[in-house]
């Protein structure tokens, strides 16, 4: 076949660019400018490649597409295997979308060691794309762990005051979870060899493996804890505020925009479908934790004096919605979860960029230090406003679609949880709008805020794409929802097959999940733009 290996190109392109950059000798200001441009160019090329992959994607197929396979360590059945389906495709596109914004957003704020910064950003991008594309669990784990190193350096070298603490906490928390997942991965590979006579780390091969429920429970827990730390789900979230707050702007954008999604992606792609019976058993617990996270994150965000910390806790809340949608395991819930992952990436990424712009100007992120910015920099505040509304989930903007679908799915599964989660929607309006009011409205009380420059052209190039995307995703969700539907249905129907009892335990009113998804999938998708469109 003369088809270009798109996915390998997607993984290799940033890596190759990073290698080239690393070979550039260290130098002064002019060379830094070149390095910045080169890195930005490489990340834009990666975005183009991601869009190219999208253009070649067949939206009607549920399975993996553009699959590439090559033997890696044959004696253990380890392959280099990559592929996309409707879920991972958009996460890759999101990664490609956010990385240039993050690079452009830190154009001025990163002064020292620009080359190393750019190299780490590109290596990180490569590893993130690899995580979403890997179809071999060994390969997945390699990317999953390899991604920690550049992120660790980004936080630890270019971060704020307590950066070292945050960086070490980030890496140790994540590792503590993921090493247990490694043992679980090795166990499944071994069970595969015991069952079929050959080792395999292939995702598709593992899906065919029928594991007894007792085994599934342990394996699921190992996977789920690793992913829950990454998400982060409520009791595992303590690394997140530190890492988000201390990371440089670009780090926060990538951390919130993409890295957290690896946790939810892992739950959706691996933990649930691979161990469906155990997942069904633990889904209510996960959902409860998710709802606790939604409310807790929102409440804690409300009282934060620090803008960045507020956004960080809002991530805990938003990601709680995603986990709730996944735990509901019906088409609406899962679609909403995936959509919310994308939304959160766009909105929170943009919020961090804005906070970064404010902090670049004032070297503080305390809400109390600001006030009345509307009079000083009307354009930046206008952008801030749109992004704030998108984060709250105003109909017509992206946040609404995801939250609505999740709540719909959760309601069909367990109305009580959905009701409790819905309070998070209100709370998010409270903390976001209150913050927005304190920062931007009123009169300029702090003389240091007078005469701050408004959004310049570079910042415009950073924020306008994000705003455009927020609006586009709000008014035309089917562009994203339709291609992901087959893949979502595939996972949901797998869960339904494995656990027919699910219908009995859930207080939902549907006759039986097995026959529902296909029917509701259509309505769920088609109806969705309705309520959000006209407003």
């Amino acid at each position, binding site marked *: 076949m003369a088809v270009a290996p798109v996915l390998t190109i997607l993984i290799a392109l940033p890596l190759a660019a990073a290698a080239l950059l690393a070979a550039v000798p*260290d130098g002064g200001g002019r060379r830094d400018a070149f390095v910045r441009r080169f890195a930005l160019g490489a990340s834009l090329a990666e975005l183009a490649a991601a869009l190219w992959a999208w253009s070649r994607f067949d939206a009607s197929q549920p399975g993996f597409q553009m699959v590439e396979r090559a*033997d*890696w*360590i*044959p*004696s*253990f059945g380890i392959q280099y295997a990559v592929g996309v389906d409707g879920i991972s495709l958009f996460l890759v596109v999101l990664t490609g979308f956010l990385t240039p914004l993050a690079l452009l957003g830190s154009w001025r704020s990163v002064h020292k060691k620009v080359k190393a910064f750019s190299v780490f950003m590109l290596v990180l991008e490569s590893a993130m794309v690899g995580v979403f594309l890997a179809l071999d669990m*060994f390969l997945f*784990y*390699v*990317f999953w*762990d*390899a991604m*920690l*190193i550049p992120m*660790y*350096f980004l936080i*630890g*070298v270019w971060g704020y005051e307590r*950066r*070292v603490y945050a*960086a*070490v906490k980030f*890496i*140790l928390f994540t*590792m*503590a979870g993921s*090493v*247990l997942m*490694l*043992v679980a991965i*090795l*166990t499944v*590979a*071994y069970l595969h060899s015991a069952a079929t006579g050959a080792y395999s780390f292939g995702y598709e091969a593992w899906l065919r493996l029928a594991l007894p429920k007792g085994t599934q429970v342990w394996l699921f827990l190992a996977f789920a804890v690793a992913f829950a730390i990454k998400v982060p789900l409520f009791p595992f979230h303590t690394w997140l505020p530190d890492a988000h707050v201390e990371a440089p702007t670009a780090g926060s954008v990538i951390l919130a925009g993409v890295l957290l999604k690896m946790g939810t992606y892992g739950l959706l792609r691996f933990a649930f479908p691979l161990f469906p019976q155990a997942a069904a058993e633990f889904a209510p617990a996960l959902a409860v934790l998710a709802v606790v996270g939604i409310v807790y994150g929102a409440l804690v965000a409300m009282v934060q004096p620090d803008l960045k910390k507020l956004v960080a806790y809002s991530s805990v809340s938003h990601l709680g919605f995603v986990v709730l949608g996944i735990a509901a395991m019906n088409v609406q819930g899962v679609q909403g979860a995936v959509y919310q992952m994308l939304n959160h990436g766009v909105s929170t990424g943009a919020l961090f960029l804005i906070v970064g712009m404010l902090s670049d100007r004032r070297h503080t992120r305390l809400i109390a230090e600001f006030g009345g910015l509307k009079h000083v920099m009307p354009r930046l505040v206008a952008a801030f406003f749109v992004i704030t509304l998108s984060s709250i989930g105003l109909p017509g903007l992206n946040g609404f679609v995801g939250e609505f679908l999740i709540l719909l799915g959760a309601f069909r599964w367990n109305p009580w949880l959905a009701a409790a989660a819905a309070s998070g929607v209100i709370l998010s309006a409270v903390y976001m709008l209150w913050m927005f009011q304190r920062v931007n409205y009123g009169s300029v009380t702090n003389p240091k805020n007078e005469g701050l420059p408004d959004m310049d052209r570079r910042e415009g190039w950073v924020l306008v794409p994000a705003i455009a995307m927020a609006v586009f995703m709000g008014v035309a969700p089917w562009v994203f929802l339709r291609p992901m539907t087959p893949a979502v249905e595939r996972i949901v129907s797998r869960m339904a097959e494995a656990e027919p009892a699910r219908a009995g335990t859930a207080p939902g009113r549907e006759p039986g999940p097995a026959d529902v998804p296909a029917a509701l999938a259509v309505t769920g998708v088609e109806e969705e733009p309705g309520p959000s469109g006209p407003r």
Partner: protein
Amino acid sequence: MSSVSTIGQVLNGIVPVMCVTLAGIACMLAEAFRRRGERMPIGGLGLIGLAGAGASAVLLWGRRAGCLGVAEADDFGLFVQLVLVGIGVLTIVFSSDAVEREGLPAGEYYALTMFALAGMMLMAVATDLLVIFLALEVFSLALYAMTGLRRRVYASAEGAFKYFILGGFSSAFFLYGVAFAFGLSGSTHLDRLAAHVQAHAPAGGLLLLVAMGLLLAGFAFKVAAVPFHMWTPDAYESAPTVVTGFMSTAVKAAAFAAFIRVFLHAFGPLRADWLPVVWVLAICTMILGSVVGVVQVNLKRMLAYSSIAHGGYLLVALASGDEVGRAAILFYLVVYAVTNVGAFAVIALLDSREAPMLTLDDYRGLWHRSPFLSGMLAVFLLSLGGFPPFAGFVAKWYVFTAAVRADQYALAIVGVLTSVVSVFFYLRIIVMMYMADKAAEAAPAALPRVPKPAAAALWLSVAALLYLGVLPTRVVEIAARAVASVF
């Protein structure tokens, strides 16, 4: 068959060992004939010997050449020998500068290195308990002397003395075990011991257990398994840094080769008896090595505890006991050798008597002073910590695969968790180098220049770590075949 060719064939199996021994003698003679102040490339003699050893090991591959029935150059032993040759080459390349800077007696240093390597390489192929003991003593004596090579440094003598006393004690244990084994089976040859054990398994009898226990204590001392590790931090700290890198890797390689032969081959049928002991040793070693490493501020001590922890991972593979475990040990030894020798080499290249670079604080802001060396050290540390895409990850993966296969879940779980703990102290060094603010003093002393060969060797090591981390297939298969052809 004429008697001449018989003698030739009889010695085939130890040709690599002889090459290294001759090189050691040549080093010694060169030193003896060296005029005061005359410069002589003595290390080059060692390299020639090692090249010969490496070439002959490759030529012997797959032939199972024996030697008088007490040594057998099977693929497993040859693999370990090649690892040892690699360690030797790296050590010599990294030494050239340090020997001069630390004022070590060059002739003695290289001769002792060669003799130590000869002993280790003999140990890797020995199939007779007495020869194993002989080899053990050969390399141990050389190492005691190397530890105390900095004659004017008080701590060096102290460490060497401790090492010597405790090492002599453990050798005595080992020899006592050999005596028991001989008394029971009427032979010191591993095959006949194995036949005896086979005949008396599973109830081995008390005396057999005593013999096994004594041998186990001897090995555990050499691989620095907890609680036989007490000598390690002191010896590692007091030895010249290049020597530390050498002995932390080479001893483990040699000792594990013999450990595998004795316990997985000869005492294999009694696995149920020794497994609990090795299991406890592995757990204690991993936990103590990584936990105590966290509180160290001296880099050499920190890496000493790290290498104790790595000995624990090797014990995990040993405890799993099947062919995957053995191959995992071989692969791990390769990776660990490259990584640890490299890490100590960076310290040796940085450290000088005028401006010591031994405590964590000395590494503050090293990135700004030497991006090259700090980058290299960071790679070695990340590989030790088991991060992909470096080889340390694949090595750990292999070991834990073996553990899971053998249903040793507890070992695997303790192993991965302790590796997280150990990541903490590897990261401490990286934090100091990259993230800490620059040192308060205005102008820290200039760092010594990195000699070209050493820089090339460092690049080569990093390339090897990336190769083994990204494309481990070839070496993994070679290790698996080496094991499969023997056991």
